[in-house]
């Protein structure tokens, strides 16, 4: 009897101490990173995982969110929608309420759907899906969801910016489209045709190719076709190995066409093209480290990332995502996903690339877009190289967010606003 009461007393003491500590202690918010960490796209996935980990470290060090620490928990989805749903379930089982994903719109559709369904069936246990790179426009249009937020510009916005730039490049006569055969790749094809017809009706589309996603290791035959079509320009939404190997094959075959890409600044591409891509490869994206703001915040993060991981920090959206969460946590003094989601709607703040706004109507972030070309490091316009090639991206044009802004057909179902 005595021993039992001692136990009870000890237990009471322990719970008192722990609850007392909880007030002073910081809370840890776990973020599930569901992206490929195996297969052909693994180098991209692991670079972005490191990017999230570094930004989380910086956020914790600088105390972005009062009383909240961030922790990134990786889940390998093997680029498969089915595996991603298993990963989502595993994350939810670990009480993780925030999901980030970006590689593959096919995966994003599955996750957005999975998150919305789970959240509707489990009130009080809501989960938010923070999409930092899956850019199929439908995710913020016909398939939009209150529980999904997109921090990258969608593929129509990027094509709008890219074609605005291309409209002024008079040397473009014959364009070849090559894209991955899935949701996103088809969106790029459609948008390229529509927007070029509007802005450069004189341009001829000489080829429109799709190929399997993340399966091809030899692009030489595709390059032979691009050459045979007499194209002077290639537009591609390819990413990861599908772009690196395409450009490698183009180099091997001596293809001299210019490349207009979405993702040439991502892992593996710089090494694959080397000097052969000089002045011929361009990309459109929300940020380029070589911009006119010398000594900017982005540069500092890039330098720290390089010294820590011997790799390049290019997924600036990792900063945007964690910064947005921190702002929302501070604003609501809560980490409850429902409250955080309402706080993020319409939020404006100064990001690494300037002022951004999370548009209320469709949860599509509005931000500037950069177009950059592949050049030698000159210490002025190109201060940072990529993958230690001595070559880097020179900003050619910065387009204000209104240039690329698109109307939305999103008809969002919102939950009732919590107090």
């Amino acid at each position, binding site marked *: 009897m005595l021993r039992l009461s001692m136990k009870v007393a000890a237990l009471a003491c322990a719970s008192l101490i722990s609850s007392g500590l909880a007030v002073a202690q910081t809370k840890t918010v776990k973020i599930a990173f569901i992206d490929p960490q195996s*297969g*052909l796209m693994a180098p991209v996935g692991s670079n972005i995982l490191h990017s999230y980990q570094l930004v989380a470290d910086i956020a914790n060090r600088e105390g972005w969110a009062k009383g909240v620490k961030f922790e990134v928990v990786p889940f390998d989805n093997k680029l498969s929608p089915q595996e991603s749903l298993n990963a989502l379930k595993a994350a939810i089982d670990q009480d993780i309420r925030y999901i980030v994903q970006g590689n593959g719109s096919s995966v994003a559709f599955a996750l957005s759907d999975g998150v919305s369904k789970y959240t509707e069936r489990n009130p009080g246990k809501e989960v938010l899906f923070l999409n930092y790179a899956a850019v199929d426009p439908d995710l913020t249009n016909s398939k939009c969801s209150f529980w999904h937020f997109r921090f990258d510009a969608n593929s129509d916005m990027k094509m709008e910016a890219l074609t605005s730039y291309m409209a002024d490049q008079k040397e473009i006569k014959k364009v070849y489209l090559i894209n991955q055969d899935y949701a996103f790749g088809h969106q790029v094809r459609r948008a390229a045709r529509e927007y070029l017809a509007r802005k450069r009706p004189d341009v001829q589309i000489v080829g429109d190719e799709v190929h399997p996603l993340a*399966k091809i*290791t030899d692009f*030489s035959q595709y390059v*032979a076709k691009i*050459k045979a079509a007499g194209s002077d320009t290639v537009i591609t939404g390819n990413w990861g190995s599908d772009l690196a190997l395409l450009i490698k094959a183009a180099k091997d075959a*001596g293809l001299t066409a210019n490349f207009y890409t979405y993702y040439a600044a991502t892992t593996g591409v710089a090494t694959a093209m080397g000097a052969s891509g000089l002045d011929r490869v361009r990309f459109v994206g929300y940020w380029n480290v070589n911009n006119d703001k010398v000594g900017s915040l982005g540069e500092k993060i890039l330098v720290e990332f390089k010294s820590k991981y011997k790799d390049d920090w290019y997924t600036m959206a990792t900063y945007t995502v964690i910064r947005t969460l921190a702002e929302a946590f501070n604003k609501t003094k809560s980490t409850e996903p429902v409250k955080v989601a309402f706080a993020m709607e319409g939020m404006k703040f100064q990001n690494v690339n300037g002022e951004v706004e999370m548009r209320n109507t469709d949860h599509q972030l509005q931000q500037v877009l950069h177009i950059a070309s592949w050049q030698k490091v000159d210490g002025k316009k190109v201060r940072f190289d990529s993958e230690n090639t001595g070559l880097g991206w020179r900003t050619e044009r910065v387009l204000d967010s209104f240039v690329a802004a698109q109307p939305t057909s999103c008809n969002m179902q919102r939950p009732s606003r919590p107090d």
Partner: protein
Amino acid sequence: MTPELALISALNGISYGLLLFMLASGLTLIFSMMGVLNFAHASFYMLGAYFGYQISKWIGFWPGLVLAPLATGLLGALVERFGLRRVHKWGNVPELLFTFGLSFIIVELVQVIWGRPPVPNELPPELQGHLFTIYTTTFPISRGFIMVAALLMMLALWIVLTRTRIGLVIQAALTHPDQVEALGHNVRKVFMLVFGGGCALAGLAGVIGGVVFVTEPSMAAVAGAIIFVVIVVGGMGSLAGAFVASLLIGVIQTFGLALDYSIAGILQDVGFKVSPDTFGYAVWKLTIAQVAPVLPFLLLVLILIVRPRGLMGTREG
């Protein structure tokens, strides 16, 4: 199709086909000799690539080109001696299951040792650059190297099988193992040699394929599917058949990619109206280029229906 595209497609197709042959020759040799359909064959191809990568990191690509296939072959011989030989007495299905299981174990081991992402397997400086130019397209040295290596390997294989004593014993053991054994030859040792040799050939293909394309854990699964097509189309156990089938599949895949014809397009050309509202439009509008990756498997199915013993196979079914 322009002559430039046709020529380049032919060269690409032949070099790819020859690489396939390097891979499939070992598999078909093992099958004809031992009756074992080695499901783990492509895993030895992958092992060759990783061994080649590791050795070239230590002492260079060229020593790796010799040592990696030897190491792969040795591993194959050990698998035969201590694994397959014991399973053999239970029949063909347990053998098949044994190699099936082995393929998964090898992939997992590779992922544990070298990780899941691709490894940075770079071409040596001697193989970088261009061999020659056709019209305006440059042809990389690495592809020429695949062709030369495959042809040399084929020559060596032919000499060993037809001009050496051990080759004659192997050929005899193919059809009459009991009599060969009765003549005092160690048939079990010959089996081990053939299995190890077949794996070494796969390893050689791996060293070259890994460095020219990508070295990563899923390469076994991708290659595995296509080499089964090769040996079924060529005829189970026929080396000549494997050669013809490899080139055929290489050329079909590359030329297939170059052809943008679709059923919808042809129908429109002969005067039918085909629009997105037409029944089954999703199928009609598919171009040959889009279905090119599936063409080898279509060929596999057709061959099995029309000519089950393959192009040059000798036995039925």
